[in-house]
């Protein structure tokens, strides 16, 4: 429909295209999926994480250091004796899927995600919660705009977890206003995802920010 809005669907798709272009340059794995017979689409990324068993069994401060390593890095770690016995079994590799969709009701992007073990068993929210870094847990509990609920993915029709979109423009507006003030262009998706992503285990390399300010 009409694009009289601040962040309409066309702008969303444009920002995603720029974002994915950079993702392809650095091999970050984001893809665009279009819907059949439609101009609509969404962005998605899948990644796998290993959690070394030993760290989970410690109590105290060390347990808070959630070393969720990407597979490539984990395999490069020198294994000491205690870790050698805890071989990474299938049950400790977790597949995360992240989808960025556009909400025409709120006119903002929305982050959908789910996680499962390799055998297909889905992780419950509390399992995902445990794997989030401590500093984000505090923020999640304090900031109501970061509420996570389980909802039906509007395109796939399957259960996903969602970061609630209704307060997105509250924290995005100052970012965008400031970028106008200092006359430096910003990619809405890059800025938004860099804020909400880490809360659910999704990190953006800094090069995205440099790429955004170069795009005109």
């Amino acid at each position, binding site marked *: 429909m009409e694009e009289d809005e601040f962040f309409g669907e066309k702008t969303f798709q444009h920002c995603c295209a720029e974002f994915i272009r950079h993702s392809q340059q650095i091999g970050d794995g984001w893809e665009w999926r279009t819907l059949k017979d439609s101009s609509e689409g969404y962005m998605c990324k899948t990644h796998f994480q290993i959690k070394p068993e030993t760290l989970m069994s410690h109590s105290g401060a060390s347990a808070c250091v959630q070393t969720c390593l990407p597979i490539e890095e984990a395999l490069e770690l020198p294994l000491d004796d205690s870790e050698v016995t805890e071989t990474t079994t299938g049950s400790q590799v977790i597949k995360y899927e992240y989808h960025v969709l556009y909400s025409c009701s*709120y006119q903002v992007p929305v982050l959908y995600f789910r996680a499962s073990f390799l055998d297909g068993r889905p992780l419950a929210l509390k399992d995902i919660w445990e794997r989030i870094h401590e500093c984000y847990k505090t923020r999640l509990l304090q900031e109501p705009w970061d509420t996570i609920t389980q909802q039906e993915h509007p395109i796939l*029709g399957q*259960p996903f977890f969602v970061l609630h979109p209704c307060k997105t423009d509250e924290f995005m507006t100052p970012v965008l206003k400031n970028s106008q003030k200092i006359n430096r262009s910003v990619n809405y998706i890059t800025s938004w995802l860099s804020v909400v992503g880490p809360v659910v285990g999704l990190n953006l390399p800094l090069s995205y920010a440099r790429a955004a300010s170069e795009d005109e």
Partner: protein
Amino acid sequence: MTDDKDVLRDVWFGRIPTCFTLYQDEITEREAEPYYLLLPRVSYLTLVTDKVKKHFQKVMRQEDISEIWFEYEGTPLKWHYPIGLLFDLLASSSALPWNITVHFKSFPEKDLLHCPSKDAIEAHFMSCVKEADALKHKSQVINEMQKKDHKQLWMGLQNDRFDQFWAINRKLMEYPAEENGFRYIPFRIYQTTTERPFIQKLFRPVAADGQLHTLGDLLKDVCPSAVAPEGREQNEPRLKTDSRSEQE
């Protein structure tokens, strides 16, 4: 709105006669009789089936019971869809009563949302009301309401209280005198033939030339495959609308 009161009441008090049968592989201590219930079209399965749950749990052992879920002819029923929608989508061409199968194990994680409590149903319902108001009024009406008004809306639905519900909902169905309608019409179109669960798009109630849009205009615009082209005899799919706070 007052002229439509009869229609609003008919929609609110719509019921579907349903027969609940326990899944044959559930472990019971004695035979489970089917349970009959009139389900409100405008409500949600997990909100109105406490008696169904109690009835079947009476013949089962605690250790054989986990989260309840419902299924119709092999399709898990999404509790977060209104009951009337589920029936119209899946069973409207079958004879009554609607035959639903009750399960207490093997929850289909990939298909259904969990429903841990009544609070989860309330949160889902309010989230739908809020999203609809974002479309109708840029969220102004819902955000100006007090928490107790939100609560009254929910309690009205939960306790089947038409007047209690509409005392609040009527504010969500108003628009300023100078406007011809809402900003956008909150609607979703469900079809069994499509992959995506529903169609939802921005759609204004008034055209650029000031003419009021009709339901036919909306369908032609967002779901043209469902509408017969001009001047051709064709089997038109029956259209059912479930008017609650989201739709006229």
